[in-house]
């Protein structure tokens, strides 16, 4: 009895460790931000880059976020990105911006 109790303690301790040590695995859980970034990738990938469509996988997250806000708020000239950017809140922009570099 005592022995199995000790085992159980070990199990709980390991789980507690897993909570921090497995953050990378937890990232494998598809998030909403990741799915939003995947949506953008329909246009914003390596293929359109030489035709003026930015390859977002090569931009820092802060730049993506600031430019999305600029499009949304009318601070940057656009043909279509103003219409897209108005569809996202600040939280959503921040949630998607960090994922592009991982694709």
């Amino acid at each position, binding site marked *: 009895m005592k022995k*199995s109790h*000790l*085992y*159980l303690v*070990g*199990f709980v*301790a*390991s*789980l507690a*460790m*897993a909570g921090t*040590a*497995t953050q990378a*695995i*937890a990232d*494998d*859980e*598809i*998030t*909403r931000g*990741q*799915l*939003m970034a*995947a*949506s*953008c*990738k*329909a*246009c*914003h*990938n*390596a*293929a*359109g880059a030489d*035709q*003026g*469509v930015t390859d977002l996988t090569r931009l820092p997250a802060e730049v993506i976020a600031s430019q999305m806000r600029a499009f949304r708020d009318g601070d940057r000239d656009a*043909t*279509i990105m103003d*219409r*897209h*950017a*108005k*569809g*996202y809140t600040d939280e*959503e922009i921040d949630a998607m911006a960090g994922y592009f570099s991982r*694709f």
Partner: protein
Amino acid sequence: MHDFSRRNFLKVAGITSAAAFTGIGCATNGMRGADKAHVVVVGGGSGGATAAKYIKQFSPGMRVTLIEPNATYYTCYGSNWVIGGFAGMDDIAQGYDTLRDEYDIEIVQDRVTAVDASARSVRLEGGDSISYDKLVMSPGIDFRYDDMPGISESDADRIPHAWKAGSQTELLRSQLRDMPNGGVFVMVAPPNPFRCPPGPYERVSLVAHYFKQEKPRSKIIVLDPKDNFSKQGLFEEGWAEHYGDMIEWRAGSAGGRAEEIDVGNMTVLADSGFERVRADVLNFIPPQRAGQIAHDVGLTNDEGWVPVDQLTFKSEMDDNIYVLGDASVAGAMPKSGHSANNQGKIVAAAIVRELSGHDPINPSSANTCYSLVTPEYAISVAAVYQYKDGAQAGVEGAGGVSPSGASSSFRRREAGYTRAWYDGITHDIWG
């Protein structure tokens, strides 16, 4: 039994290091179920190929098989460029080598003839059966020729629909090339809902572009059962600017509704039979429904489309089948290649999350659709979608069409982005 296993497991855990135990714990809790699963995707168009690729991106260990009868897939988007005479079939051809070689997707060149949902397996025309844990179907459209008296599917080799790209695209192109100057091109446009809502109107734009250069005395008549169409104001602005009165669009309530097609005389009866419109080249784009296999499996509703849980695109009829793209009922999302691409990502995420034991996430997606009025003049429509009250709904305040009255340089920039969009989305799907 469960307790016994757990105790054994704990004992094993006790004699391994904490780090190793962490690894086992993760595999059990997280991606292990997903890693072992086999997803079969039916249809290698925009929706199916995207779903296959993104499942592998989200969960590389998962086994994915893509079944598509054609070795080369011709995109519908861009096919009007071929019909307009300024692009070739090679420009709209896509293949599966990258998906096979770089994404480790098994490509099966065959046609699915049946799905046994209870046994979770699909049967192929070639005789084989393939079993699945999850089935993704992106069957596209088929036509309802029965809705139009006088014409049947076998007439398509003479009166092309050209609404699935490939030999039909080439046929319409060759008919236009052979048409004499001063001829009449008649399009019978489809009722809603149909694949690519602005497509018919881009098509007549680019046929007009070809006529203007090569056959300027020719005429274009669109017989439409509808009273309005996608990007209408922008198309009409562009037509007036570039083609004068070459294109005549007749609304359904103004005699545009075709009642019958006299195939032998290349004549359309319209306006309750009062009008007979003779064509030198006739493009009948039939009313549409989900691809036949969706009907065969029993996934369709009375209107001929596939109802799905629009949060995940899981079929309402079967828990292990997901249906996306033009065949699906997707709320405010139009039947477009861009919608299918975004839905492919939603399906990929939903399947990986479900197999990993996670609840679905509320997806966010978008549509971007460019139409060329001339090769150097484009207009666009955009939208952002979220799942709301059981359906995909447009986010208020976002999206919309290009401005009316914009400068020629604005239209030219959008024409450049039209080509960039094509290169980008085909790279995202097949590249």
